C-alpha cells in the first residue's frame, strides 16, 4: 500500500501505532478509575498487564507499518523502516520499565493506574518524536513526552528527592523547550517552512544566513538538553536519582532513543547541507560529554548516580555515531541503541532489586557480597556492567566497534580515539561495582536480606542479559535489519561493515 497523504485519512494509517497506544493508555486509565473510584488504594495487577498487552498490540501495529510505503519523503510523519526500528526500541524500553515496576510500586506505596497510563502516553510521545519530519510535530511530540515525564519523575510526591528532581527537570525542561521553539521560529523565519523536506533544498542559500544558523543552533541546544549532553546535563543526576527507578530506566533509554532519532532526522539527514557548521559544535559537545561524564562518574558513591552519569557518557558515544552522518553511522547508532536500551534498563532493574524494605540501597558498599547472595542477579548485573563498559563477549563491545568504524569511515579520527580513551576511563567505575559485588564480604547482619524484584522483573532482566550476550555472538542479522532501516535516509554503500549488500 502506498500513502501519498492526499487525503487526511492517510494520517490515520501512518500514525496507527501511536493511535492504538493512545487509545490503550486511555483504556488503562478508565479500567483503573472505574475499578477504584476515588478510593486511595493500590491498583490491581491487571492494570500493569493490560499496559504490557497494549505495548504488544502497538508493536504488532508497528510491524504492520513495514508493509506500507510513502509516495514521497515530504510528509509530516515519516513512514519508513528507520521509524519502525526506533519504535521497537522505545517499546522495548517501555515494556522493561513496566516489568520492573511490578512490585516496586507496591513497595513504595505508589501503585496507581495513572503511573501506567502516563508511562504509555510518554511512550506515544517518544514514538512520534522518532517519526517527526516537521519541526512543529517534533515540538509537539517532545512536549507530549516531557509533560508526562515531569509527572512521572515526581510521582512519589511524599519523597522530597522525587519532588526535587521533578521540579528541577520541569524548570530546566520547559526552559529548553523554549530554546527549541525559538530555534524552530528562527528556522521558519528564514526558510519559510517547518517541513524538513522543504528546508533541505534551500540549505545552500541559507548557509550564510545568521538567522537560520542561530535557529539551527537553538534547535541543537533544545535536543541536546533532552538527550542530556554536557553541558546541558545538570538536571540529569538529580532527576534520575530522585525519580522512581522504573521511570529512570525509561528516561535513560526510551527518551534518549527517541531524542537521538530526532537528532539524526533533523541534523544528520535534514541539515546535512550545513554539516560543516553543526559538526564543529557537536564534536566539542561529544568530547566534553565523553570525558566529563566519565570523569565525574568515577567520583560517585551511589550506584544509581553512577549509572546516571554513565548514561550521559553514552549520549556522548551516540553523538559520535550521529556525527558520522552516513549510513554506517546511522546503522551503528541503531545497533548501539538497542544494546544500550537492554543493558541500561537492565542495570536499573538490578538497582531496584538491591533494597531493604521500601529503601533502595544505592551505595557502593551496599553491593558487598551481592554477587554471592544472589547468584542469578549478580551474574546478570555483571553482564550489564561489562557491556556498558564495552568488554568483548558482550553486545556493548560490538556496538562500540561499529560506532568506531563509522566514525573512521567519516574521517573523524580524533572522535574515534577519544571514544576509546573515554571507554578506558569508564572501565574503572564499572568494574569497581563488580569487584565489590564478588570480592568484598557482605556485612554479617545483612546475610539474610531478601531481594525485591518480582518474577516477571527477574525474567525480563535475564532475557535482556541473554540478548546482550547474543548480540555479541550473532550481531549479523540485527545489523542487517539496522542497515536496511537506514536505507531510506542515506544511500547505502555496497558492503556494510564487511557484510554483503
Amino acid at each position, binding site marked *: 500500500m502506498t500513502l501519498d497523504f492526499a487525503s*487526511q*485519512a492517510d494520517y490515520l494509517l501512518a500514525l496507527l501505532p501511536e493511535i492504538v497506544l493512545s487509545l490503550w493508555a*486511555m483504556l488503562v*486509565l*478508565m479500567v483503573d*478509575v*472505574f475499578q477504584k*473510584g*476515588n478510593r486511595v488504594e493500590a491498583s490491581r495487577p491487571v492494570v500493569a498487564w493490560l499496559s504490557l498487552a497494549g505495548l504488544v498490540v502497538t508493536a504488532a501495529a508497528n510491524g504492520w507499518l513495514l508493509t506500507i510505503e510513502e509516495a514521497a519523503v515530504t510528509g509530516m510523519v515519516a513512514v519508513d523502516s528507520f521509524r519502525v526500528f526506533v519504535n521497537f526500541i522505545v517499546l522495548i524500553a517501555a515494556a522493561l520499565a513496566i516489568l520492573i515496576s511490578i512490585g516496586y510500586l507496591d513497595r513504595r506505596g505508589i501503585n496507581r493506574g495513572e503511573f501506567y497510563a502516563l508511562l504509555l502516553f510518554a511512550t506515544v510521545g517518544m514514538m512520534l518524536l522518532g517519526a517527526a519530519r516537521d519541526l512543529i510535530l517534533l515540538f509537539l511530540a517532545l512536549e507530549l513526552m516531557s509533560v508526562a515525564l515531569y509527572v512521572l519523575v515526581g510521582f512519589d510526591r511524599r519523597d522530597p528527592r522525587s519532588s526535587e528532581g521533578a521540579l528541577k527537570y520541569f524548570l530546566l525542561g520547559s526552559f529548553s523547550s523554549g530554546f527549541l521553539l525559538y530555534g524552530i521560529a528562527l528556522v521558519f523565519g528564514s526558510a519559510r517552512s517547518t517541513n524538513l523536506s522543504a528546508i533541505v533544498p534551500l540549505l545552500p542559500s541559507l548557509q550564510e544566513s545568521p538567522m537560520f544558523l542561530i535557529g539551527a543552533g537553538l534547535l541543537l541546544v533544545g535536543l541536546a538538553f533532552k538527550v542530556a549532553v554536557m553541558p546541558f546535563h545538570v538536571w540529569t543526576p538529580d532527576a534520575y536519582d530522585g525519580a522512581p527507578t522504573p521511570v529512570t530506566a525509561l528516561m535513560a533509554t526510551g527518551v534518549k532513543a527517541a531524542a537521538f532519532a530526532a537528532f539524526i532526522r533533523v541534523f544528520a539527514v535534514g541539515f546535512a547541507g550545513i554539516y560543516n557548521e553543526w559538526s564543529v559544535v557537536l564534536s566539542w559537545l561529544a568530547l566534553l560529554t565523553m570525558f566529563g561524564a566519565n570523569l565525574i562518574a568515577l567520583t560517585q558513591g551511589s550506584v544509581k548516580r553512577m549509572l546516571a552519569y554513565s548514561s550521559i557518557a553514552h549520549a556522548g558515544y551516540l553523538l559520535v555515531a550521529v556525527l558520522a552522518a552516513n549510513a554506517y553511522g546511522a546503522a551503528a547508532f541503531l545497533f548501539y541503541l538497542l544494546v544500550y536500551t537492554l543493558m541500561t534498563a537492565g542495570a536499573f532493574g538490578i538497582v531496584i532489586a538491591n533494597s531493604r524494605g521500601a529503601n533502595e540501597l544505592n551505595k557502593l558498599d551496599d553491593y558487598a557480597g551481592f554477587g554471592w547472595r544472589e547468584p542469578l542477579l549478580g551474574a546478570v548485573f555483571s553482564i550489564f556492567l561489562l557491556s556498558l563498559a564495552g568488554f568483548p563477549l558482550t553486545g556493548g563491545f560490538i556496538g562500540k566497534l561499529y560506532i568506531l568504524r563509522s566514525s573512521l569511515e567519516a574521517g573523524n579520527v580524533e572522535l574515534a580515539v577519544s571514544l576509546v580513551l573515554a571507554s578506558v576511563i569508564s572501565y574503572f567505575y564499572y568494574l569497581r561495582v563488580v569487584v565489590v559485588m564478588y570480592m568484598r564480604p557482605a556485612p554479617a547482619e545483612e546475610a539474610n536480606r531478601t531481594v525485591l524484584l518480582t518474577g516477571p522483573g527477574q525474567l525480563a532482566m535475564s532475557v535482556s542479559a541473554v540478548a546482550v550476550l547474543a548480540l555479541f555472538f550473532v550481531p549479523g542479522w540485527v545489523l542487517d535489519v539496522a542497515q536496511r532501516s537506514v536505507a531510506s535516509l542515506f544511500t547505502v554503500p555496497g558492503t556494510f561493515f564487511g557484510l554483503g549488500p
Partner: protein
Amino acid sequence: MLRSYLPLLILLGISAAQAVGMVVVSQVLSPTKWTWVKASPYESGIDPLGSTRERFSVKFYVVAILFIVFDVETVFLIPWAVVMREVGVAGFVAAAMFIFILTVGLIYEWRKGALEWD
C-alpha cells in the same frame, strides 16, 4: 524591507519615552506625604480584615483546572463551529477526536470525585 517598519519603531520609542517620562516627572514634581490612610489598600473604603495570605482549600485549585479544560475546549470549538461547512468531514472527525479525548478526561474526573464539592 525592514526600513518600512522604521516609523513604527519611532512611534514605539516616543510612546515608551512618554509613558516613562510621565511617571518620572510626576514622581519628581509632586509633593509626597505619607499617612496611614493613604497607605491602606482602599484609601476611602473599608479597613482590611486580617492577612490576605490565608490557606484555602485545594478544591478551588481543582475547580480552576477543570475550568481551564473547558475553557480551552471552547477556544478550539468556536472557530471550528464558524467554519464547520468549509472544513467538511475531515474537520468534523478532528473535532470529534478532540471531544472524545476531553470526554475521557471528564469521565476520569467524575469517577475520581473531582466534580463533587464535599
